[in-house]
């Protein structure tokens, strides 16, 4: 099969399991973002794909070939490190030429390829500069160009944009995605920034505690999170407990909600409702009721905080559909099946 | 790069040469010295193998007790003088412009690298009657006539402080560079004068460093083997001088070795003390 396949990959450091039984298939040419809080095992997984760490169990296949034990330098990768790892003793051009030089490519080919890559990253004419004289964004691009110099089979990036300021980071995300689509190269990015993952990825892999919690397209992850961790980690959400009685009537925070059904056979579940999906109505009328405690008007959006039996529910709306409520007012929160994602407890 | 334990025999290869060199030419000589300390002296030659305690028994005398006491006292005096001089100096140095720092560091390293022979010669010249500092005082009319300032205890002390001062500064330098400058700034905003801030904030914050440095300089001063001989009288000789004297001029290597082993034990005891002091400091 063309692409990357991880089979039951395990990594233990002593008694600590950093990566637990990971199964993942990355078809050729896709852009995957591995997303999760720090310590979730995403970087360790990337390092195993690169061969910088060896798995303690399972196998890694690239284009049908088992590369689990192949040393890093024979994997033909391109990798961008969090620290960028540009060689301080080499110029921009020498940095980019490095993978070609150690493969003993002819001097003219090296020179031509460096020119090509520099123009691709909009840094033509920078070949002879020392890397210390570059700005953060320029260093970032040089690291990317260097990793792509040999047209690798696999392009790996470990938190590549974390050192940049917010504005530049957003611009680079777009640039990186466009570059990847142009080259059609299989790309794996590790990040803890969900916005970054949503911007760039074909597939987002959400990890926690060394395990993959969900692997799907960004919109799928957002719309249909697999569990409450994913729902909470990706974007903002309201997580509310729901209960069903023996005949399937559902109540939320002690108030009956007709028309809602939990998973078959489950007496308890967690509902995830995105703030922009929370619809405020008059009290009663198929809605649970609560009290408005605070209204935050941010200009572009308005957040309304509603207290329902001690739980806080946040509703977000645009100025156009601003809810006509004031602090202390009783309101209803509509919980219709189309906006509630029912998650297993 | 993740550091990994060596996987194959080949991974140990780089260690081979250094390990062999250090073992053969440091560990073995050290062992030889310990062995020799139990040997018997042979008149006119080096020594004959034996196993006697005579060499150790010999310095259990009032004379060697006196020498040991003087050596320790001398080293303590040098260490205290050096710290008192070097601490404010190094503190101010670390707060100076970088290029000024570099010039001073070059100067200090140059003095530190000077041979004890050269330091001894330079100070004996400075303290001499014909070319010494007293000639300047005479020229200024402060003194009637030039005189020699060596041999004397003060001359030995001065020479040894001169030798150990750059070492003290270089030992203190890293700790003082890392000292958070906002500490003194905070003290200043709270109303402390610069001098008061130095004594109430910098000195207490560096208590462990000062103790460790004191011990290191003490050991350094214990090692001085020529200055007491060049600048002092025989009663100013230290254990290091005596060891050299016994080994070279009296050709009594077993006795010299026994004294050296003793000196090592004293030194190691002090290093252990430093470590314990450091631990305690960390715990506090």
């Amino acid at each position: 099969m063309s692409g990357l396949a991880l089979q039951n990959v395990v990594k233990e450091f002593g008694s600590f399991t950093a990566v637990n039984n990971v199964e993942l298939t990355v078809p050729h040419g896709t852009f995957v973002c591995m997303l999760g809080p720090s310590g979730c095992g995403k970087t360790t997984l990337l390092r195993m794909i690169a061969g910088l760490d060896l798995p303690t169990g399972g196998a890694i296949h690239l284009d049908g070939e088992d590369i689990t034990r192949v040393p890093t330098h024979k994997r033909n990768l391109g990798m961008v490190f969090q620290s960028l790892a540009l060689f301080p003793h080499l110029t921009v051009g020498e940095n980019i030429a490095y993978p070609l030089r150690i493969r003993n490519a002819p001097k003219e080919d090296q020179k031509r390829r460096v020119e090509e890559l520099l123009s691709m990253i909009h840094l033509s004419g920078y070949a002879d500069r020392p890397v210390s004289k570059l700005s953060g964004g320029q260093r970032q691009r040089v690291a990317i160009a260097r990793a792509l110099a040999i047209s690798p089979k696999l392009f790996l990036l470990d938190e590549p944009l974390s050192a940049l300021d917010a504005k530049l980071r957003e611009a680079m995300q777009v640039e990186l995605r466009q570059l990847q689509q142009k080259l059609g190269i299989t790309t794996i990015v590790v990040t803890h920034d969900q916005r970054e993952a949503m911007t760039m990825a074909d597939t987002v892999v959400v990890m926690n505690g060394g395990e993959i919690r969900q692997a799907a397209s960004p919109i799928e992850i957002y719309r249909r999170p697999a569990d409450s961790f994913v729902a909470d980690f990706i974007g903002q959400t309201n997580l509310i407990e729901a209960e069903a009685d023996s005949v399937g009537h559902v109540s939320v925070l002690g108030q009956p909600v007709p028309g809602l059904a939990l998973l078959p056979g489950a007496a308890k579940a967690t509902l995830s409702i995105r703030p922009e999906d929370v619809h405020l109505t008059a009290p009663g009328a198929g809605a649970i009721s609560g009290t408005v405690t605070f209204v935050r008007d941010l200009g572009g959006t308005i957040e309304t905080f509603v207290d329902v039996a001690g739980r806080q529910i946040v509703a977000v709306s645009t100025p156009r559909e601003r809810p006509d409520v004031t602090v202390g007012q009783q309101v209803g929160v509509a919980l219709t099946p189309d906006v509630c994602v029912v998650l297993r407890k | 790069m993740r550091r990994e334990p060596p996987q194959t025999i080949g991974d140990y290869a780089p260690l081979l040469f250094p390990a062999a060199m250090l073992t053969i030419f440091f560990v073995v000589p050290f062992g030889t010295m310990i062995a020799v300390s139990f040997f018997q002296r042979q008149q006119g030659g080096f020594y004959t193998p034996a196993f006697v305690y005579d060499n150790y028994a010999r310095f259990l005398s009032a004379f060697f007790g006196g020498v040991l006491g003087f050596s320790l006292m001398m080293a303590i005096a040098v260490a205290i003088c050096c710290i008192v001089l070097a601490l404010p100096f190094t503190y101010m140095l670390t707060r100076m412009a970088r290029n000024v720092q570099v010039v001073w560091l070059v100067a200090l390293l140059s003095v530190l690298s000077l041979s004890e022979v050269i330091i001894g010669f330079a100070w004996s010249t400075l303290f001499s009657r014909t070319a010494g500092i007293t000639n300047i005082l005479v020229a200024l009319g402060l003194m009637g006539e030039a005189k020699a300032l060596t041999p004397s205890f003060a001359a030995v002390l001065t020479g040894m402080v001169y030798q150990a001062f750059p070492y003290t500064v270089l030992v203190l330098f890293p700790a003082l560079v890392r000292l958070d400058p906002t500490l003194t700034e905070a003290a200043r905003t709270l109303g402390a004068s610069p001098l008061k801030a130095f004594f109430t904030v910098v000195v207490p914050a560096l208590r462990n460093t000062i103790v460790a440095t004191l011990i290191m300089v003490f050991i350094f001063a214990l090692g001085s083997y020529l200055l007491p001989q060049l600048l002092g009288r025989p009663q100013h000789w230290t254990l290091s001088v005596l060891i050299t004297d016994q080994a070279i001029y009296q050709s009594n290597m077993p006795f010299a070795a026994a004294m050296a082993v003793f000196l090592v034990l004293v030194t190691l005891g002090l290093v252990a003390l430093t470590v314990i002091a450091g631990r305690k400091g960390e715990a506090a």
Partner: protein
Amino acid sequence: MTSIFRKFYFFLIALFLALPLIVVAGVSINEKQTLAFPPQGFSTSWYGEIFLNPEWRNALMASITLAVLSAALAVAIALPLAWFLWRRVAPWANIFQLLGVAPFTLPPVITALGLLTFWATAGFYGQPWTAVVSHAIFFVTLPLVTLSLGFTSIDRSLVEAASTMGADERTVFRTVVLPLILPYIVSGYAFAFVLSLNEYIVAYMTVGFTMETLPIKIFNALRYGYTPTMASVTILFVTTAAVIFGLVARFGDLPKLLGAMSSDGK
């Protein structure tokens, strides 16, 4: 500290450090073979003497040869050791780090006496090459410390980056590690060289009766009377040390080499 106090204090320290050297420099330009200060007359002949008088010239050559070789050997011992300790996890190998630092930390008489008994027992006492080995062991601490510091300053991700780009261990060492550690090799060599040039006791105990290095020559001269050449050699030594450390500072980061880890430490 007020600025006037600081200037005065620094002036006193500078005076203390420089005064003996100023007097020696003054003595070294005396016209006649007398120990006099302020100098009487002016002559640079005592500097010429170092190179023209065969005894002094031989001692100078012996010292330089000894320093060049022993510093090289010290680096040769320290480099693989420091590299191994940086590259591998082998806690027991730290014993060699300790052994490398010990000769310089212990009172020098002890190392000197240990080597003396060793060479005497092994039957090589007095042979010139034993001085090279002795100095290399005695000063291995200096390159070991500078190289250990140098290695810790190399970002390990540079090595990983090189291997992802196709470099094997040997290539990584040649193309990444070596160029980055080179300044530390040079300064480690420089430290060992200057100290070996000045070293007296170890050289004296190992080869003192068969060979004269400059410090031994000065000491012997000191015992048998005074000659201004001692003064000119002293000045030559101080100048050499200052020039070499000046070069280290010019081409390297001296404060960092001396343990001030971050150059933005102030």
